[in-house]
């Protein structure tokens, strides 16, 4: 394959871009590019629209100013980057991303039910997993509290570059994270005549207990809601969060890996009348009918992995490579993520793996760009290459689903943010 090249004048620009990247990395406050930049002769995969074999992408003031074929007008004074032989896609979005934050910091163990806690408080813009994901083309991530609590707290959606978490925010209180299965009860102990000298002598110690905690929490929140309707009463911050889920104002994301946990997640959501997204649904292939009926979205954590996800890997799921294609065939909405699976590859490689198991390339790319954007409610800002959207995109050395593909430059709000590999 011929090595892509920049025009001589652009080499200087690339150098400057590298310099500004260095400055950004140090100051954590990327400056906006001054004039428009046109990426020409690229193969464009816009997401949600047909591919453009020889396309032009114009970026100005952090947004996409124009996208189209080779005849797309290039604004006067624009810097031009020749992308011959390269492919440009929207920035990837990981809808279930695990940061490098200490497990203890992302999991409050003082209580099993902490709906008001915020994953945003644990976020470091220089988190090493975040930087790694960014270098591999991920421009936005959904970060949730850990999976050691039954109801862990609020997830947030952030871009993968910015001076501090608040400036990276796409959506602050985006989701409520619930975890079913063996993990939340890990470490809890039953009182058997001994001395109670730890907070871990408590429920739940079983799967039943975990479900009981979820049911009790939503039951109490519902009761409080009914009381409030009669005579307004202040509710504690945790209850307010649960009530938002019950009222359809906040999306619940339930981590449920095994078949029984998936069924339970759907059953409880149905019982209390809220919608839930299913996270790390490794046994989704066993509950296809139920998923289709519930019209819920499935987050397929690391479809390449044979390992059961989670810090304990005790959920007894049976991951299958073909699950992704089965979901597509049944028309069940799904999103490819990396999640907590220790075997997870870079997000783009997970999409590549999905194509090896029957997914079309367009479906695979949409599953890491447009679909997560829609699910997280950020599709008006990012997730596809459309005029007016944020200029979050990746220039790949070749087709991103090619095993040899490398993210040559990653742009967030039009700024090149690729960290040195």
């Amino acid at each position, binding site marked *: 394959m011929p090595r892509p090249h920049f025009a001589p004048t652009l080499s200087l620009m690339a150098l400057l871009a590298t310099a500004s990247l260095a400055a950004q990395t140090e100051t954590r406050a990327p400056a906006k590019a001054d004039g428009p930049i046109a990426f020409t002769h690229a193969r464009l995969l816009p997401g949600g629209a047909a591919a453009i074999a020889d396309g032009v992408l114009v970026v100005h003031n952090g947004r996409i100013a124009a996208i189209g074929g080779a005849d797309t007008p290039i604004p006067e004074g624009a810097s031009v980057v020749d992308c011959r032989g390269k492919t440009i896609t929207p920035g990837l979005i990981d809808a279930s991303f695990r940061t490098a934050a200490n497990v*203890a*910091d992302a999991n*409050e163990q*003082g209580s099993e039910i902490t709906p008001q806690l915020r994953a945003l408080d644990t976020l470091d813009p220089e988190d090493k997993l975040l930087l790694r994901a960014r270098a591999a083309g991920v421009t936005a991530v959904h970060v949730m509290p850990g999976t050691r609590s039954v109801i862990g707290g609020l997830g947030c959606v952030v871009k993968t570059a910015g001076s501090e978490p608040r400036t990276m925010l796409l959506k602050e209180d985006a989701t409520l994270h619930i975890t079913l299965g063996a993990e939340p009860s890990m470490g809890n102990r039953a009182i058997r005549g001994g001395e109670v000298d730890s907070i871990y002598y408590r429920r739940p110690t079983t799967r039943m207990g975990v479900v009981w905690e979820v049911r009790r929490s939503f039951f109490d929140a519902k009761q409080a809601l009914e009381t409030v309707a009669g005579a307004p009463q202040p509710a504690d911050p945790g209850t307010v969060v649960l009530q938002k889920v019950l009222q359809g104002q906040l999306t619940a994301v339930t981590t449920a890996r095994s078949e029984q946990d998936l069924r339970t997640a759907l059953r409880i959501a149905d019982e209390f009348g809220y919608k839930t997204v299913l996270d790390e649904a490794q046994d989704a292939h066993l509950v296809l009918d139920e998923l289709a009926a519930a019209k819920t979205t499935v987050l397929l954590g690391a479809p390449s992995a044979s390992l059961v996800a989670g810090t304990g890997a005790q959920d007894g799921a049976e991951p299958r490579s073909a699950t992704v294609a089965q979901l597509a065939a049944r028309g069940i909405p799904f999103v490819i993520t990396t999640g907590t699976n220790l075997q997870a590859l870079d997000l783009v490689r997970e999409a590549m793996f999905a194509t090896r198991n029957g997914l079309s390339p367009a479906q695979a790319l949409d599953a890491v760009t447009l679909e997560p954007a829609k699910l997280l409610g950020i599709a008006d800002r990012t997730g596809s290459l459309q005029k007016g959207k944020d200029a979050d995109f990746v220039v790949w050395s070749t087709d991103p689903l090619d095993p040899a593909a490398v993210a040559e430059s990653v742009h967030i709000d039009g700024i090149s943010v690729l960290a040195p590999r």
Partner: protein
Amino acid sequence: MNRCSAAALRGSLLLALASLAAATAAPGQTPAQDLLVRCQTMVIAPDTVLQGSALLVRQGKIAYVGDEIPAEAKAGAKLVDYGSAVLVPGFVLPPTTLGRERDLAEGALPFTPDLRAVEAFDPWQEELLRLPQHGVTSVLLSPSPRNLAGGLGALVKPGSETGGGRVVTPELQLALSLAQVARNPEREPTSLMGAIDALRTALQKAKSGLASGPDALILRGVLEGSRKVTVAADTYPELLGALDLAREFGFQPVLLGATEAHKLVPRLLEQKATLVLNPLRFDQPERQLQLPSLLAEAGVPFCFGGPAESLRLSAVLAVKHGLDRRTALTALTRTPAQTFDQAALVGSLRQGCGADFVVFGGDPLDLGSPHLATWIDGVCLLGTVPGNARKSKTEDAAAVAPAAGVR
């Protein structure tokens, strides 16, 4: 005990401690005769350096400096002449437990803002009495960062004529903590998310007026700006959590530790934060050693945290890595005093301040300069008094403890 009786008891304890403090500082315990201290270089404050000058000590305080000393006062004073030595204000050690974690970390509860470090003050504590060996003349005894809200710190001094330490200011800053040590795996909160939420909830309750009792009173002081706050925080998310809380509730933060402060310098500047940095060591990464000079260039005030024995070394290493000497000396003296509103009492040799000073054979930021003497409240607690055949009270002890550094 209910809250009211607890408050009443606390009030009476306060009176008792105040009278104890007054008693320990009684004039009878400081030399009755004025002292005229002379030496070649006299650092009154980091930006006021006098050459071949003198200061007059009366009743343990600085009475006059340089040309201001009246001739009759000079005539009646006892001369202490350190010749070519360098005299600097005594070092102020920022919040520390002085190794008394078991007395200053209330393990049963994470949130105890109404506890007072002064209740655990032991005037004869060995760690306290050793401080003059390291040039430290006053210290902020503080509850441990193991508690989310540990309680109130106190300014104490390590020595007096009686030999024991004394309390200078019994109630100072509120010690909060988001540091790793505050997240106890055996009690709530166990996580950073939980710790931030717990502090936010407590401050919100105090703000709303719903909370009552001594702890709410202290938090209200924070919200009104009358109570200083320290927050122990090292990593980026901890520091950001502290800054977010400070911004939300309108207090000016003093951050203890601040290992990753380089990541958020603009925010530190914007919120007028002061940092108490972890001690520097030879084996630390370059970035850590350069942090003081980075902060100084940006204009973020900082001082060095304990232990006392590393205070001077931290300043020396910071200078080695680009910090100017004046700022380094400020970080050892005036910054910690100003940060906790104690600049009228300690941290410089201006009129009215305690006569707390350290005498070195050369530049104090050169580790080769011998440490000749430490004076607190006009009493020589370490080293020799020139022209005085009688050894100082602690000189014998220093002589048998080579680590004292007195040559």
